[in-house]
Structure formats: structure tokens, C-alpha cells
């Protein structure tokens, strides 16, 4: 087994142990989803004009977002955070592996394991009781799955950049406060992007965030045709490469000056 896959597997298995956290997360996301849906229902009832998305599409979009919240790059991996804070980076550098790849792999494992734990019960409950719909078609479902893989790659590249930035700031709170707001709003997590004014959508189209939520979700509900999948994957891959390149460059600079906390 390659080192990276071994670490991925071990970390995934470790995160699966945190069942209580997952249960709490499930409860929180269920409550958030319901509140959001009631708000949108009220909007849709009170407005007469035609909307860019049907209410049913919005409901499914919201549930998907709540189910997959842990895949979004709005927080940092607790192990990596602790390593940077208390100087455990030293041990990481003693391993015959590439440090960037090591952190990236850990992040992937952590995000996937948390999402797996939380999304399964949430999707079942939302589909049975709260009008979440299955993918528009089999093709839409497959396209969504492919775009979700692209979204995870991108999300973890962004998260890795936060991790690297912590070599300078030590505490990660500042970075995650800013990133949480940016990511949740610009990805479509807070308000589905089609509901935003056209000029805002022009901005989000030029930014990496819509590849995390909006594009894969709209493949799922069928409002983006599956023919656009290749373009979406390309957009995600381009941004991913950019974030990886930036993260690697910064990591190499950071390691030269790192004092390794605690003597």
C-alpha cells in the first residue's frame, strides 16, 4: 500500500469513530435545513413573479447542501491545526513523504469520513419526510457524483492553503472566519446562486467557489444539462491546480522560516 493511501485509510477509519459528533451534526443540519426551507417557502408564497428556480428544486438544493456541509472548505482539519500549533510538524517532516501531499490526504480523509457519517441519515430523513428529491435522472446523478469528486479535490486544495497559512499565523481562527463567510456565500450554500442578481452571478462565475456547491447541485436537480459536465470538471480542475501550486509554493517558503514551536 502506498504511504498516502495508508494514511487516507487510517484517518478515515479514525474519524468514523466520532459517532456522537456526527449525530450532533446531523441534528444541527436537519434544523438548519428546515429553517431555510420554511424561509424560502414564505418567500415563494409572498412573491408573484416568476422565479429562476422552482421551490421543489430549491428544497432539494438546500438538503444537498446540509448533507454535504462537511465537504466545504470553511474549516480546518483539527489534527493538522494541532500539529502546527504545538510543533508536531517536526515529526511530520521526519517521514519519508511529501508534506503537502500528506496534509492534503489527511484533509480528504477527514472531509469524506465526516460527510459519509452525516449525509447518509440526513438524506434518508429528508427524502422520506421533507420533500428532498432523487437526482433528475440517472445521467444527472452520475454527473453530480463526478462533479462532487471534483468539488472535494478543490475543497481540499483550498483547505490545504488555509493549513499552510497557519505556519505564519499559528492560530487558524482568522483564516477560517474569513473563509467561512466567503465560501458559504459565494458557493451557493447560503442562497442558491441562481436566486442572486445577475451582476453577483457574473462575479461568482469568475471565482472558484461555485464549483464547490452550485455547479454539482444543479447537475443533480437537472437545471444544468449533463453535457456541461466536462466544462465543469475542467473549471474545478483548473482552480484545484492553482490552489495546489500556491499551497506548495507557500509551504516551501514557510518551512524555511518555521521555528518549530517549543524549542
Amino acid at each position, binding site marked *: 500500500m502506498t504511504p498516502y493511501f495508508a494514511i487516507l485509510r487510517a484517518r478515515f477509519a*479514525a474519524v468514523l469513530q466520532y459517532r456522537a459528533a456526527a449525530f450532533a451534526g446531523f441534528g444541527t443540519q436537519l434544523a438548519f435545513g428546515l429553517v431555510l426551507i420554511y424561509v424560502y417557502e414564505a418567500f415563494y408564497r409572498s412573491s408573484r413573479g416568476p422565479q429562476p428556480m422552482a421551490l421543489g428544486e430549491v428544497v432539494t438544493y438546500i438538503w444537498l447542501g446540509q448533507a454535504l456541509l462537511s465537504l466545504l472548505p470553511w474549516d480546518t482539519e483539527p489534527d493538522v491545526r494541532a500539529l502546527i500549533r504545538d510543533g508536531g510538524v*517536526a515529526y511530520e*517532516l*521526519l*517521514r*519519508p513523504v511529501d508534506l503537502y501531499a500528506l496534509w492534503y490526504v489527511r484533509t480528504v480523509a477527514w472531509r469524506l469520513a465526516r460527510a459519509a457519517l452525516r449525509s447518509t441519515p440526513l438524506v434518508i430523513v429528508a427524502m422520506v419526510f421533507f420533500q428532498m428529491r432523487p437526482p433528475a435522472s440517472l445521467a444527472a446523478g452520475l454527473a453530480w457524483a463526478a462533479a462532487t469528486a471534483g468539488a472535494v479535490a478543490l475543497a481540499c486544495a483550498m483547505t490545504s492553503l488555509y493549513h499552510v497559512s497557519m505556519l505564519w499565523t499559528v492560530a487558524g481562527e482568522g483564516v477560517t472566519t474569513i473563509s467561512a463567510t466567503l465560501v458559504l456565500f459565494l458557493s451557493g450554500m447560503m442562497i442558491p446562486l441562481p436566486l442572486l442578481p445577475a451582476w453577483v452571478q457574473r462575479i461568482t462565475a469568475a471565482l472558484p467557489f461555485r464549483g464547490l456547491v452550485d455547479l454539482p447541485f444543479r447537475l443533480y436537480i437537472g437545471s444544468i444539462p449533463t453535457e456541461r459536465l466536462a466544462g465543469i470538471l475542467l473549471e474545478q480542475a483548473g482552480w484545484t491546480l492553482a490552489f495546489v501550486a500556491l499551497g506548495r509554493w507557500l509551504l516551501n517558503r514557510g518551512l*524555511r522560516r518555521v521555528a518549530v514551536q517549543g524549542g
Partner: protein
Amino acid sequence: MPQIIVENLCKTFTVHERSSGMGGALRGVIRRRSRQVHALDGISFSVEPGELIGYIGPNGAGKSTTVKVLGGILVPDGGRCVVMGRVPWKQRIEHVRSIGVVFGQRTQLWWDLPVVESFDLLRDIYRVPRDAYARTRAEMTELLDLAPLLDVPVRQLSLGQRMRCDLAASLLHSPDILFLDEPTIGLDAVSKLAVRDFVRRLNRQRGVTVILTTHDMDDIEALCSRVVVIANGQIALDGPLEELRRRVSSERRLTVDLAGDGEEVFDPDAILVRREGNRVELSFDPSRVSAATLIARLAQRHEVSDLFVQDVPIEEVVARLYAEMGT
């Protein structure tokens, strides 16, 4: 050819400081005060394969910094460092394959995993072939008595158990050089002995080069033939343990148990160091008076029930050396 060559190694850290209190904190917002700390200020030494070296010095002397440079973690500001023909920080990945490191203050095992899974993970990370891994693991399990610990999650181990597991973990890839950074810190007497015994066997039987930093002078006395003392980022002494003793003082100690109570003990060539009940400890300079003469004189004047001669405890030697160096 030496296995480790260190020449004129320098490393400077910038420390940001601020005065205490709210005033200091506010001034710190406007202008940060910083100070240069020379953690390593021109260190040179070399190590032959199979040596077991004690690397000692007061807190903040630069011990850990040296270990981190040799381990490829830190990039020095100046000087040369070659370990087994490689420059550690330039060829980090190849370099770390051939070394093992244990930091006493920090575990390299995965907190949530049972010990054996941490070991398996390390096998994958170092790409150790399966049969070689099985052999080494079995050997380590036997030598360090790990069998009852293998299935326990690391967070539930006691410090002594954890250190034994950490030692095993650092050796699973059969490194040629082992760096031990305070491996006995916080351990009880039994665990310390187990660690020392293991390190000695590893060095003698397998020929692994060991560089040991410690504050426990019993570790040094039990294990090391050569001691490197570092203070203020410079090497203060490099040689056998006896040389360290000679350098600081030639004095020896005579401990006498008297038969009678409360007798005054006096000799013109000896100094009374301490007295506890019937036990009297005298310090003398063997170049002025031989142990035999001193004992004879004392036995004449007092009724002696027991006595023994020994060297100054290594702790005291080192404490004096540190004091001499003004740290």
C-alpha cells in the same frame, strides 16, 4: 569516514518580545521588539558509525536545535552538515529513511489508534517490506515486552509504556542512526532502566549509532562513552566521561559511617560536604592526600563501621561545568 559530519553550524532565531502588562501589550501593537537568539553558534563535531554519544547541555543550549538540523527538519543559517553522505534538509526524504527519532515529550504514534495499527501505518509510510517488518516487529515486541500493549489505543498507555512503544516505532524501518531527545523524561525508575537497557543492546548488538540528549546524568553514566556538552550554542566539551570529570575537578568523595554518635570529624586534607546522623561525607583531592592515607588517619581517630570512596556525582560535575560556562 565519519557517519555524521557537522562543521561550524549556525542557526539564529528571531524572538519577538513584549513588556508585561497592558502597557507592554499596547506598545507591542505599534512596534514589535525583536531579539536575535543564536541557538547554534558555530558547532562542529563528527560521529563514527556505532558510537553512542551523550549530547548534554542546560535548557535552551541548542540541543534540540542540533537534533532538528541533523534530522532535516530545520534549515541552518550557515555551516556544513553531512549525514551518511547526504545534506539532511536538502535530501530530506532519502535522509529520513535512514534515521529514527524519538522526542521524549511527544509521541509519534497515532493517538486514537491501537499501537499495532500505528506500527502498520509506519510500515506503509516507510514502505518496509512485509517480511522485514514482521521480523523487526517481533524482535521489538520481545525486547521491549510490548505484547500486552499492542492492541491498546495509544492514549490509554502510561508514559513508560508509551515510550517503549515509541522506541519500537522509531526502529521499524531499521535506521542506521537513532536520535533520542530526552527519552527518559518523566519515567519511573523501572521504565528508565528498561529504556537504558534497550538502547545499550541496540547499540552494542546491532551497531546502531545513537545520539542521546538528556538531563538525566544516570542515562549518560550508564550508556555513553563520549559526551558532547553544548552551552550557549557552542561546544564546551567533547570527550569521554572521565575527561568531563577531570576538567571540572579532580576531587573524590569519602563517605564514612561512624559507630559513635555526634563525633566531630576533622581532617586537614579533607572538607566536610554533608553530615546525616552517623554518616559523614568528605571531599578530598587525591593529588594532596591518597584515599588510603585519609582512611587510615580517620580510622585511627574514630570508630568507623563502614566507608566507601566514590567520584563526585556526575550531576554535580555537570552543574559546575554549566556554572563555569555562565549559563
